[in-house]
């Protein structure tokens, strides 16, 4: 079926430019993919969460300055790719829940607790999912870097690095190659945190985004890095190609 969208921003389908007009009327989908890449790397005493700032639909860029990383609590960062309206709604909801947690328990929510809450929130919408691909990054109760990576319906895992979104396929193998550490099953236990220093990790992340931006049309414009360590959270920005 050929599709055509009166609003012109959803479901752009180049094939409808050519013949074979069996049917031409507007359809819609409750979902869109707004592209973008998000990633996070955990170290022994730091964690870095980064995302590009491009928001696109089909072949058009809607804005070049859309921040995908949010500070949910002093110890928790969350980044989402996928459908931005779902991601924005999800983050709004969770921010409210984080405030409630703070009121009920007299302390800001930790990243491990937040991770579980996000999973439950996603799973509750199992049959009309939030089309958002999330990464949670933070420092755990011991002050160690933690990264949690999700699918759209709430399945999650604690890892020490992860990447989601349109540049995932380009970046993930690089991270595997550079950061893969000893299996958690090996005895005696070896720290699963990446062996890199904070500066080295920042460089790696910047390289990853610059690289993904070369081939992935949905990744570009700028990359924002949120670096969390015992001193707090700081933000770095690096421009990317705008093509």
């Amino acid at each position, binding site marked *: 079926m050929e599709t055509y969208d009166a609003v012109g921003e959803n479901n752009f389908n180049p094939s409808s430019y050519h013949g074979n007009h069996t049917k031409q009327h507007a359809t819609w989908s409750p979902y869109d993919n707004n592209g973008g890449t998000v990633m996070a790397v955990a170290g022994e005493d730091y964690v870095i969460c980064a995302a590009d700032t491009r928001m696109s639909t089909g072949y058009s860029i809607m804005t070049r300055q859309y921040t995908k990383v949010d500070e949910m609590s*002093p*110890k928790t960062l969350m980044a989402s790719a996928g459908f931005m309206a779902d991601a924005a709604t999800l983050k709004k909801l969770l921010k409210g829940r984080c405030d409630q*947690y703070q009121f*009920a*328990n*007299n*302390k*800001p*929510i*930790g990243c*491990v*607790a*937040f*991770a*579980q*809450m996000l999973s*439950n929130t996603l799973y509750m919408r199992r049959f009309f999912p939030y089309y958002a691909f999330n990464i949670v990054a933070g*420092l755990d*109760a*011991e*002050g160690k870097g933690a990264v949690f990576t999700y699918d759209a319906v709430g399945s999650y895992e604690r890892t020490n690095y992860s990447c989601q979104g349109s540049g995932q396929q380009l970046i993930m193998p690089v991270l595997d190659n550079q950061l893969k550490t000893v299996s958690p099953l090996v005895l005696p236990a070896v720290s699963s945190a990446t062996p890199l220093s904070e500066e080295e990790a920042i460089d790696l992340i910047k390289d990853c985004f610059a690289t993904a931006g070369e081939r992935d049309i949905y990744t570009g414009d700028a990359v924002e890095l949120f670096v969390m360590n*015992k001193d707090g959270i700081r933000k770095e920005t690096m421009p990317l190609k705008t093509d």
Partner: protein
Amino acid sequence: MFQTRSEYDRGVNTFSPEGRLFQVEYAIEAIKLGSTALAISTKHGIVLAVEKRITSPLMEPSSMDKIMEIDSHCACAVSGLTADAKTMVEHGRVESQNHYFTFNEPMPVESLCQTLCRLAMSFGGEGEKSMSRPFGVALLVAGFDEEDKGNDVGGYTLYHVDPSGTKTKCRAKSIGSGSEGAQTSLNEEYREDLTLEEAETMAMSTLKAVMEEKVNVKNVDFAVLKSPKFQVYDAKKIQEIIDRAA
């Protein structure tokens, strides 16, 4: 104490002109009729001890539990109407499990006590599920919080929750009929650097002093809340403590 008693002690939601809620005060009085319960917290764990009133030799002492587990990191000793305590403990259990389900972490002890306080205060409302009167029970809630770097929390904490919905953090506290005497001796003897064993002995000798009957393995219950697990003592262990306190 209640010289000014008047019409104002009927309704649970009416203040007297002096600003008192009599039904709540009576509920607090009801606890003074209950069996003695006490708790002592140390750096290494919290000891809970209760008196059990065995009024007939035909009663099965093990069927009387006044020490209850709320979660694996949290337990309580109660005095007053134990049936009311069951309702509160059940509520605490649900809240604690719910917290674990949502946040994948044990519920902070203070938050847990706060939910019990909220329940204690929710009397006098409409509907079938709402209590028509205050709970006639006080709880000594002992719990363990995991350490959290960056937030100054962690370690053992003991709370006293009463029918007015007030919670007080304590280092050692006694409730029930013998509470006055027991509290005096706890106040005198408590030290910050108590070992768990010393606390056990102190709990036993305090109980012994305020109980009308002679202590034995049947008429007292002992438990310790010690990470990672809450543990109720068996008869053998209780006898050891009795011998030590002798």
